[in-house]
């Protein structure tokens, strides 16, 4: 009986694996999109719950690290190219017989330049010189590393202090990241956003099936695989000695320190890992939606991640991930506005109020969330009987 959560988990994974292949209902692309976004939020919510629930470190900057990942790969793919011949006008370096070209930043409002230097060079060349984009995978990896590095620096600065300082600082940090992205229009194109190449540039050919650029199936499985990878890493972390240290310092940092746990170091490691996960999710999502704008860093997104994790169960990252998928689907279902007695109810906003109230109610009356107790309950079925049976056996053996 205690195996029910494992079996249910496997069934759920099988369901999500099979779903895009067997689903034949209406709005196929839309349903897939909702699920992909759900997986994206699931990665964020589960890594955040590792940080908040396991390590007890409340960061409100998770979305900022996600944004660093997204903008990391966006800037990389936007500014770096490889060409066969030197352009002569861009910043460029020799690169294994070809040339690594860095485009100049022209922004969106430049009056003197309407084309970047690479485009000018391509116009001059015609079709004679080949130009390659950077591989998307490299961009995603670099974005992830950038997010992890930023997490490391923020963590080193703030994590030696108490919990409130981290929450305060990360909230400000995410505002700053948003301000920088919005203000440095030359480089980031501000609100106009950066356009990214799709995840699989030339489409994908798998098992004899041809998938185009806009097909939802490849990004669906990519995001799902990333979610599973993150959950696997988190599970492994939480079961290891490392996870025990982290939980010890959540319960009582002073006692853990007295027992020889280098609390700051473990907090920084957890923080770096989880921020890198957020950055990876952001980078993949950016290539999936193919555009990044500063709007993805609105505090609303962070609030949603917090709500998802808390409603799922903040101390259990699987529950948090399920909560995220569940809430994302709910958000889409509650989108349709309606009117009662002539009063138009704008559900696009009211649904957020609904989630805010739900978040507070769950916090107040079901502190472990709605899904985590369910999982625990099934995991504990039979444990009591087993213990009693063992004790009886021992007593009989003694007597």
């Amino acid at each position, binding site marked *: 009986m205690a195996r029910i959560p494992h079996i249910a988990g496997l069934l759920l994974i099988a369901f999500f694996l099979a779903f895009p292949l067997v689903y034949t209902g209406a709005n196929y692309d839309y349903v897939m999109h909702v699920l992909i976004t759900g997986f994206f939020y699931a990665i964020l919510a589960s890594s955040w719950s590792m940080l*908040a629930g396991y390590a*007890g470190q*409340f960061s*409100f900057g998770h979305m900022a690290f996600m944004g660093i990942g997204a903008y990391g790969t966006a800037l990389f793919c936007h500014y770096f190219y490889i060409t066969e011949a030197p352009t002569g006008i861009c910043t460029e370096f020799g690169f294994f017989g070809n040339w690594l070209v860095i485009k100049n930043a022209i922004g969106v409002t430049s009056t003197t330049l309407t084309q970047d230097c690479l485009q000018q060079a391509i116009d001059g060349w015609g079709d004679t010189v080949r130009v390659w984009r950077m591989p998307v995978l490299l961009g995603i990896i670099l974005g992830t590393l950038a997010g992890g590095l930023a997490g490391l620096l923020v963590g080193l*600065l*703030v994590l*030696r*202090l*108490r*919990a*409130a*300082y981290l*929450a*305060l*600082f990360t*909230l*400000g*940090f995410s*505002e*700053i990241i948003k*301000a*920088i992205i*919005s*203000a440095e229009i030359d480089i980031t194109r501000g609100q106009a956003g950066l356009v990214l190449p799709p995840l699989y540039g030339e489409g994908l050919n798998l098992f004899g099936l041809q998938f185009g650029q806009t097909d939802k199936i490849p990004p669906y499985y990519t995001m799902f695989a990333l979610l599973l990878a993150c959950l696997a890493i988190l599970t492994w972390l939480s079961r290891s000695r490392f996870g025990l240290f982290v939980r010890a310092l*959540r*319960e009582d940092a002073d006692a853990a320190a007295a027992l020889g746990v280098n609390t700051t170091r473990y907090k920084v490691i957890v923080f770096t890992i989880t921020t890198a996960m957020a950055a990876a999710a952001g980078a993949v999502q950016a290539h999936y939606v193919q555009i990044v704008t500063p709007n993805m860093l609105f*505090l609303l997104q962070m*609030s949603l991640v*917090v*709500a998802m994790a*808390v409603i799922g169960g*903040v101390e259990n990252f699987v529950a948090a991930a399920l909560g995220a998928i569940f809430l994302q689907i709910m958000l889409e279902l509650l989108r349709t506005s309606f009117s009662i007695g002539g009063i138009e109810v*704008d559900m696009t*906003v*009211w649904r*957020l*109020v609904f*989630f*805010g*109230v739900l*978040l*507070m109610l769950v*916090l*107040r009356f079901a*502190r472990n969330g709605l899904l985590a107790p369910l999982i625990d309950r099934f995991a504990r079925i039979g444990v009591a009987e087993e213990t009693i049976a063992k004790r009886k056996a021992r007593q009989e053996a003694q007597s």
Partner: protein
Amino acid sequence: MHPKRNGGPSVQTPEIFWGVILWMTVWGVLGSVLLRRRYFSRDLDTSNVNFAGAMAGAALGPIGVAVLWARTPKLSGRITTFLGLTAVVLIAAAFSFADPENNCVANGAFRASQFTNGLIIGIIYGFMALGLTLIFSILGVVSFAHGEFYMIGGMLVYYITVVWFPGVNPLLGVMGACCLAFCIGALFERAMLTPMYTGKIDRPVEYGILATFGLAFTLQYFVQALHGASPVKVQRYIDFPRWEFPAGAESPLIETRRGNLTLFDTVSISNPRFIAAVTCILVLLALLYLLHRTWTGKALRAVSQDREAAAIAGIDPNRMNMLAFALGGMIAALAGALLVQAFSWLPQVGAIPAMRSFVIVVLGGLGSLPGAFIGGILVGLVEAAGTGCIPDAQKAASYIPAYGMIVLTLTLLLRPTGLFGRRFASGAHGQGG
């Protein structure tokens, strides 16, 4: 992260400025690391030495570090303050050498006006942060809904004076907004925060952070759902009379027009900000009176110092918690109610003031009331300097949250306890001292 950019439109020799900054940074880091090691190895108190060492290095370079090194155990607040001021003066001097034609270097009147307006807005910031620090000192919770209280303060004034009862005296609107905010704060505290005190919750601090964050989220979208996303603004509350002092002079020392106050014919202060700052000071005095002269205020301070002892003396800490949270929310709402006549108001307007309040309370020391006020003025001045001096005006405005963050980062690096914080620095968690 630094907003200034090399080769901006009007900076002529940026190398000087960046060279000085680099020199100060290198010696500041060296000074703070070296002195900390020395104090550590001698088993001395290291809580102040980071800041002092960094300032000595930044202000006087190797000489400063060497002097502090030589006279190791002696470190007074006065020396540290002096060194810190020298460092600020050095940065200003380097900036004026690097960019002599900048408005805030060449134009004395502009400088005076930036300074005065920074001071005025700083008083309002400090007042708002006071609410946050009051909540923290008593409940041990950083209220993440502070910005939303600020927002509903302004929104309520708009609704009371413009929508519900058009033409009503703005004073009534402000008072109504304060009362409602007080009630919301009290209700929220009763409904959500009470489990924190009974020990039912394993980690009350984290619970408090999440609960107030949830309140912020709910309030913001509730207002947006009711009101929509259109910005509102309120007429200014009071017109200044037409008045000059001394009367009839060529360039009067003080001159008031309906929407403006001019000092020495150069510094112009807009009416709404002036009224807001004056009201803040008055309410602050009233608050000080409440805290130091009345039974309730003394009880509040007693609870913030020692919960159990206060309970033994017959004070109900639970009621003080409610009062503190409601008062803190009301202070933020009052700040919003006073500033709604100066800025246009949106449901999202609270985010940046809330962040600024966080910066201020950390700079002043979490839980320290005078620290919050002085921190507010400092942050107001830093923001005025930032917006006034950065060559590219458009960027200077978009980076307003960044100035506070630079201050916050420096505070956390050099002196995490803040200017006045000692006892509360490690976080009193709602129970116990």
